[in-house]
């Protein structure tokens, strides 16, 4: 009975927390007598993320008596922990980092984030290239994008050179990519005398599913997922032919995508732009095998505009329990604004505002591939989110993860798996 009890106790604690939280709201205030204010910023991976500290320092330098504290809630279940904290009436957290769209919709459904449209009246929303619209609900938005990463195709130039195969090109289609993977895998395995994989799908569903929405016709909250059928056909057959590593083994061995790419036996890998600084660092520090690499635009499907890609959005919001909302919003505006974008770009990370200046900064950092095509790869036309905003986003996420799992482990036929997902999502809409 232990788990059950624990769960029930959790619910009880939650309600107790709510009551305590309600009491707490009237009382203490973070603003101390001497005018010093401490803001708390919830986030993850403090150790390995390089831009938190410079952002905080830059903000504190402009605001006397303000201290920003980092509250690391861990990366794996960040949204769950955050949700529990805020639901419990926690008024310590002022600034909330929102990790993904299901997280955003879960927080806004429960009114845990402060509406920002009025506060952001003077902010030019166009600089976010349409991403704010993607998180707007009934003319109101509750967070501002801080980072907008998108997917690009990383490739190992050394493997292509050994195989004598031409590098991946910007604007190729998924079918071209399929051919290229098979080609390079066969030839490189031959010339190197060891198994070389043509591509690599990390265990995320988005690694396969994102291709399906690049033409803008469909989104991943859908009542008919048959549009994913051709993509899965190709991905599964690549797996069967051992052009890519086996999904189930990757999952059971918990192999990180970076480790897979560092081994110098994977020719191409679709991954977010967040991987650029990590890869640079890993190669210069020797964590990775040494090889030349480049990036190309994400392969597209028929009917998609060149430069279309999938992306993720990390945004910042203000907790509705916060007692320093005005100051917290100032911080949000600073980090998500032009100044914050520069600070983020200095560390090689792609911020939400992607002006030419910002892109130049990133491509001129040492270790970034020097060829023109890799630079061009950072120009995007349409960036589609892994999941659009929807009130059932977290349920849909679970359903899509399960079908992906079922299909990639051969537990179900592709069409049956997709049909099943369609039915489950339709049932949510009723």
């Amino acid at each position, binding site marked *: 009975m232990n788990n059950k009890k624990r769960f029930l*106790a959790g619910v009880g604690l939650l309600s107790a927390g709510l009551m305590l939280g309600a009491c707490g709201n009237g009382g203490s205030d973070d603003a101390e007598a001497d005018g010093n204010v401490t803001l708390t910023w919830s986030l993850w991976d403090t150790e390995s993320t390089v831009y938190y500290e410079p952002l905080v320092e830059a903000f504190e330098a402009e605001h006397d008596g303000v201290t920003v504290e980092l509250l690391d809630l861990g990366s794996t279940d960040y949204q769950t922990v955050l*949700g529990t904290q805020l639901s419990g009436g926690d008024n310590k957290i002022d600034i909330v980092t929102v990790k993904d769209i299901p997280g955003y919709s879960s927080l806004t459904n429960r009114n845990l984030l402060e509406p920002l449209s009025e506060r952001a009246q003077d902010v030019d929303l166009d600089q976010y290239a349409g991403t704010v619209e993607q998180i707007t609900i009934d003319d109101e938005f509750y967070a501002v994008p801080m980072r907008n990463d998108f997917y690009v195709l990383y490739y190992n130039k050394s493997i292509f050179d050994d195989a004598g195969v031409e590098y991946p090109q910007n604007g190729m289609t998924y079918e071209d990519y399929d051919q290229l993977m098979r080609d390079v895998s066969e030839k490189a395995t031959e010339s190197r005398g060891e198994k070389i994989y043509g591509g690599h799908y990390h265990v995320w569903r988005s690694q396969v599913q994102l291709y399906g929405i690049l033409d803008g016709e469909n989104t991943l909250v859908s009542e008919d997922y048959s549009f994913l059928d051709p993509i899965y056909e190709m991905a599964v057959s690549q797996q069967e032919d051992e052009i890519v590593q086996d999904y189930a083994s990757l999952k059971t061995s918990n192999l990180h995508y970076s480790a897979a790419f560092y081994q110098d036996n994977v020719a191409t890998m679709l991954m977010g732009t967040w991987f650029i600084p990590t890869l640079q660092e890993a190669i210069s520090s020797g964590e990775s095998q040494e090889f030349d690499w480049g990036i190309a635009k994400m392969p597209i499907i028929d009917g998609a505009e060149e430069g279309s890609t999938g992306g993720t959005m990390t945004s910042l919001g203000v907790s509705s329990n916060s007692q320093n909302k005005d100051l917290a919003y100032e911080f949000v505006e600073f980090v998500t604004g032009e100044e914050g974008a520069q600070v983020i770009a200095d560390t090689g990370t792609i911020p939400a505002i992607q002006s030419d200046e910002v892109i130049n900064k990133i491509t001129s950092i040492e270790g970034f591939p020097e060829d023109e095509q890799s630079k061009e790869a950072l120009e995007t036309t349409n960036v589609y989110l892994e999941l659009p905003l929807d009130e059932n986003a977290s349920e849909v996420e679970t359903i899509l993860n399960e079908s992906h*799992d079922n299909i990639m482990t051969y537990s179900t036929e592709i069409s049956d798996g997709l049909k099943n997902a369609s039915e489950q999502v339709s049932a949510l809409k009723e």
Partner: protein
Amino acid sequence: METQMKRDSLKKRKLKERLTAYSFIAPNFIGFAIFTLGPIFFAIMLAFHQWDGSNDMTFIGLDNFREMFGDDRVKDALWNTIVYVLATVPLTLACALFLATLLNSKIKGRNIFRTIAFFPYVASLVAVAAVWNMIFHPVNGPINEILRMIGILDPPRWAADSEWAMFTLVLFSVWKQMGYYMVIFLAGLQGVSEELYEAANLDGAGRWGKFWHVTLPQLRPVTFFVLMILTINSFKVYDFVYMITQAGPGTSTLVLVYEIYNTAFLNWNLGYSSAISMLLLGLVLIVTLVQFLGEKKFTNQ
């Protein structure tokens, strides 16, 4: 007059005694009331509400339960839980009993063997599960290497295969838990009087005869205890699933507690998840009651 006074003082003393007793129980009971009883009632109430943890609760009557009957995930979870219980309970019980009788006989180094059998229970779940996953790796795990060596060219993909995932999970549970129940059985075996075996020897009973007619009946109360604990433990399984399969592939090892957690803390559907908890509670209650009645009937014979 005197008797009246005597009676009064007796009453007083009794009251005092009771109060003392209650005050001793109080710390535990208060803890129980706050952390267990309260939440249980709260969960029962929640089951008839819709609540996301932040906005106002709305009373929706039996809607949560109605929704449950049409929910494929809950159906899968219920079915998987039942399969898991039906497989784990008898297997663990049999293995534990077998080990206990084996290690109760006078063999050389039995303390070492007892320790070995108990070891999986002591070892940290996280570490053990990680090693287990490596051993049963679908492609290059040692188990499959061995299977291929002895001529099984297409060995099962264990936790990565929806047909085999539940089997892998049950195997892990049995291996992890049997040592604990073995110890309980061993303790029970110490209470079986030598005289009974001597008498059985005189009657010409063999090994099996002694086991069936002496050991097993003598162990009945212990067996009943183990059966109960094991059943309840198996119904609430979550940690093993989380470590070995994460409910996958797909929903093939999704169990009720896993779904309760998902509904509550990923989807923030606290009312609905409480309703599923009620389903689990009802299930465990019924099974336990049946076991109790069965036991009573048994002992009366």
